């Protein structure tokens, strides 16, 4: 919590709110308590108040119930990560209290439900404790039958009071959220919220005032990474998809199933992963770019079909919301360990495109880019997200949908002749003609996974196989030339370049900022296009003495992770080294800082 008047808040005089520029609140309870919705309300409020917000949640892998947390970081400046430590911890149960105190910042504040939590002596002196009988006060406010329901809104009211939040806006959000469920539900929700807000105690009344955000962040939308991918696909004109349930991908599937019919499309829940990818490919063949997706194990199952799409040169978008692996692994935790399968999953030489989204807003735009690349290059495109981005909520500037949205019409206009695997262009690009297209010379295409000649006929000819392998590879080289060169943040040459991909971006930027403030000279770069790598990336890496690839996967036998492996193979540069984490938790800013410092010390000692 960056306070400008810290002393005022701590000297017992709470009549005047202290001004803060950002705050991290962690809500710890059980999954059925609806603590996610408190976070959701706060995130939306931030979006409507020109503030930046980032949230983080954990979902228990138990089927019902189980401990769950939601962390929300609100700021008037740039918010790049969900925060390492919480400034305020809301503990609803003893286990929430016991297990999350160590995530509280040094001068943090602990608000606990005194109906359920017995504070520990040794922590009472360490952290400021505020006990409020949240459960019984909620029952008092909305009636005894509600049991635990409504506690979340009561807590939201308390938060509103503590941080002098705009209650009119919050009430409007509650109305919108519950409006469709009937008057009595809205009234109950509102009663719970208002009782929380009116809870009278000097301890919590108007403690803080969160500074207003910058004016340039106007008109924000608030959503999770999975939602952003789903809506990005729709904006890009995707009208067909197929999938199979698996965490944390399922949200995207549910969203597309619900939303696509509005646009004349369908999303089909299939009997398995193989059917899903096959249906999506079938739709692509029919002329509508198909999408499928999954997480870890499901991606493994799809690989044969993806190889077919590479060989047959059919557009396809594959979303992989990565989780901890291998095998069933850590289904509800984060890891960036599917890069290798995205790049190489499949037999034979099967070049495909791999993109990685770095935050919620980027999920939206990268999904659009994935679809456009698939269409133009007739190739499977992997979009890698991960559990951390999938479930976290951010506010971002509303996209200009009028210019972005594509109405893609099926083109079945007759052609004089057609070669589905035309080699003449040299750039590797060719386009299919969907069934229903009349080919006037009467020579119709067969699309196939057998090696084939230009018209799709099977061919085992060596010269042909060389030419076709080159074609499938060349189109990626063509794409590489069109890709933007990644931006280097900080000096564009120097001692250390930290390279990240995917959800590592925010913490990495924050770490570099802090290290720079401490007097270190270093830069960072984020790679979104992993296959192909943008042409001229090779000019950047040699400008730094050391290049560390920061990723959430194992350093492996040789001490570097999956992206580092790609870069070392590509640039034959042994200065590329890994900073890896396999805890199945997101990178904390402080961890990156510690690891970078330790690495620098090691290298200085060795030098």
């Amino acid at each position, binding site marked *: 919590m960056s306070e400008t008047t810290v002393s005022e808040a701590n000297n017992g005089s709470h009549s005047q709110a202290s001004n803060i520029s950002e705050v991290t609140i962690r809500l710890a309870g059980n999954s059925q308590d609806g603590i996610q919705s408190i976070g959701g309300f706060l995130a939306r409020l931030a979006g409507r108040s020109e503030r930046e917000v980032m949230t983080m949640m954990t979902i228990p892998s138990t089927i019902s119930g189980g401990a769950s947390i939601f962390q929300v970081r609100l700021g008037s400046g740039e918010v790049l990560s969900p925060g390492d430590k919480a400034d305020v911890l809301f503990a609803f149960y003893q286990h929430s209290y016991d297990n999350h105190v160590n995530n509280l910042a040094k001068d943090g504040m602990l608000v606990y439900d005194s109906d359920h939590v017995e504070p520990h002596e040794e922590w009472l002196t360490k952290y400021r404790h505020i006990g409020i009988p949240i459960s019984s006060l909620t029952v008092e406010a909305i009636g005894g039958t509600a049991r635990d329901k409504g506690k979340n809104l009561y807590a939201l009211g308390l938060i509103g009071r503590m941080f002098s939040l705009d209650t009119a806006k919050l009430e409007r959000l509650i109305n919108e959220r519950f409006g469709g469920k009937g008057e009595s539900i809205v009234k109950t929700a509102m009663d719970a919220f208002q009782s929380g807000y009116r809870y009278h105690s000097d301890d919590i009344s108007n403690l803080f005032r969160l500074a207003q955000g910058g004016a340039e962040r106007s008109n924000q939308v608030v959503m999770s990474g999975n939602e952003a991918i789903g809506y990005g696909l729709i904006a890009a004109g995707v009208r*067909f998809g197929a999938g199979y349930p698996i965490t944390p991908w399922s949200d995207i599937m549910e969203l597309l199933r619900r939303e696509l019919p*509005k646009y004349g499309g369908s999303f089909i829940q299939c009997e398995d992963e193989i*059917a899903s990818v096959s249906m999506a490919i079938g739709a692509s063949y029919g002329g*509508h770019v198909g999408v499928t997706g999954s997480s870890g194990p499901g991606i493994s199952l799809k690989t044969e079909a993806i190889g077919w799409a590479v060989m047959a040169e059919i557009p396809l978008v594959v979303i992989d919301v990565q989780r901890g692996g291998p095998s069933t692994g850590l289904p509800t935790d984060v890891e960036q360990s599917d890069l290798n399968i995205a790049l190489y999953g499949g037999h034979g030489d099967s070049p495909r495109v791999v993109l990685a989204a770095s935050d919620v807003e980027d999920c939206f735009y990268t999904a659009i880019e994935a679809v456009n690349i698939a269409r133009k290059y007739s190739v499977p495109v992997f979009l890698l997200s991960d559990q951390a981005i999938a479930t976290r909520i951010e506010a971002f500037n509303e996209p200009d949908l009028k210019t972005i949205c594509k109405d893609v019409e099926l083109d079945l206009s007759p052609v004089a002749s057609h070669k589905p695997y035309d080699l003449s262009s040299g750039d590797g690009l060719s386009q299919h003609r969907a069934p229903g297209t009349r080919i006037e010379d009467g020579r*119709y295409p067969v699309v196939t996974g057998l090696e084939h000649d230009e018209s799709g006929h099977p061919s085992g000819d060596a010269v042909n196989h060389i030419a076709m392998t080159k074609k499938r590879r060349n189109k990626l080289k063509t794409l590489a030339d069109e890709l933007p060169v990644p931006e280097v943040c900080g000096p564009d040459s120097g001692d250390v370049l930290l390279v990240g991909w995917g959800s590592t971006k925010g913490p990495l930027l924050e770490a570099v900022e802090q290290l720079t403030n401490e007097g270190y000279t270093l830069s960072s770069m984020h790679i979104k296009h992993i296959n192909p790598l943008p042409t001229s990336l090779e000019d950047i890496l040699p400008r730094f003495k050391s290049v560390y690839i920061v990723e959430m996967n194992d350093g492996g036998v040789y001490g570097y992770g999956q992206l580092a492996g790609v870069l070392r193979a590509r640039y034959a540069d042994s200065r590329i080294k890994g900073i890896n984490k396999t805890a199945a938790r997101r990178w904390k800013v402080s961890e990156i800082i510690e690891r970078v410092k330790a690495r620098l010390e090691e290298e200085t000692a060795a030098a």
Partner: protein
Amino acid sequence: MSDSATMERPPQDAEERQPVTKKEITADNPTWCPGCGDFSVLSIYYKLIQKRNIPHENVTTVAGIGCSSRFPYFVQAHGVHYIHGRALSFASGLSLSRPDLHVFTFGGDGDAFSIGGNHFVHTARKNVKMTYVVMDNFVYGLTKKQTSPTSPIGFKSKTDNWGAFDQPINPMKLAISAGATFVARTSHTNPKHLLEMMEAAMDHDGFSFIECLSECTEFFAGAFDNSNPRKGGEFKLMPEDHDPTDEASAYALAGEDFPGRFGIFYQIQRSTKNALEASVIEAAQDKFQGKPDSEVLQATFNRMK
């Protein structure tokens, strides 16, 4: 995508266009062995296309992997040679996203009932509109004589030198119990009956499944002789009083000893997945009264502020 036109609706210039000729619809020389039953299925497919005057550009043939799955190469039309066992899933994606086409899928017994067994069951129960012809030869031919899921007990293959002993799948029973809405059986030796079944399958609004006995002369010669009158067997049609909507009766007939019956075992009308999805689309779009997609998405985004 919500266009519910059928492939039989002629294009605007249809009056000027002649039905496709056999020469126009014939492509590569089939790579099948001499005497293979699949030749007969191919020539009946040509006949069906001509007889039903399917516009050339709308003929869409999908197959998986196996001898019979080479089929699309031999048809001069839009065609797909997909991966082993998944042709039905591919064809489902095509059928559901392109309701203007009637998709024909061809495959063998390994493709349909072994590696693709799961997809067979689910495509049947979902009633995805298409015609699926399984050319059943009771053996893996392309990989040269291994036991197939329909190999009869006692069949000596390279993987069962002593004779197969696993219970074979009964395709009729499987299809009926999976929820298929059109289940028929025919043989390559009776082209007239084969065409009749193909036409009935094409006219069926839903997933229409035909098991066509198709002899592998190389690895299981004579397998179907006792269903072929020319070889001293009997081509036994369904009883005249059989009611194809009677599931129990269809199932009982499917249980008769080999060579069993030929004809339509089971046929009912049930909403296709295509129609059900289209009605979801219609209901969803109704609310937006033809607004452009960007405005529909904008309305959603407005609720996320």
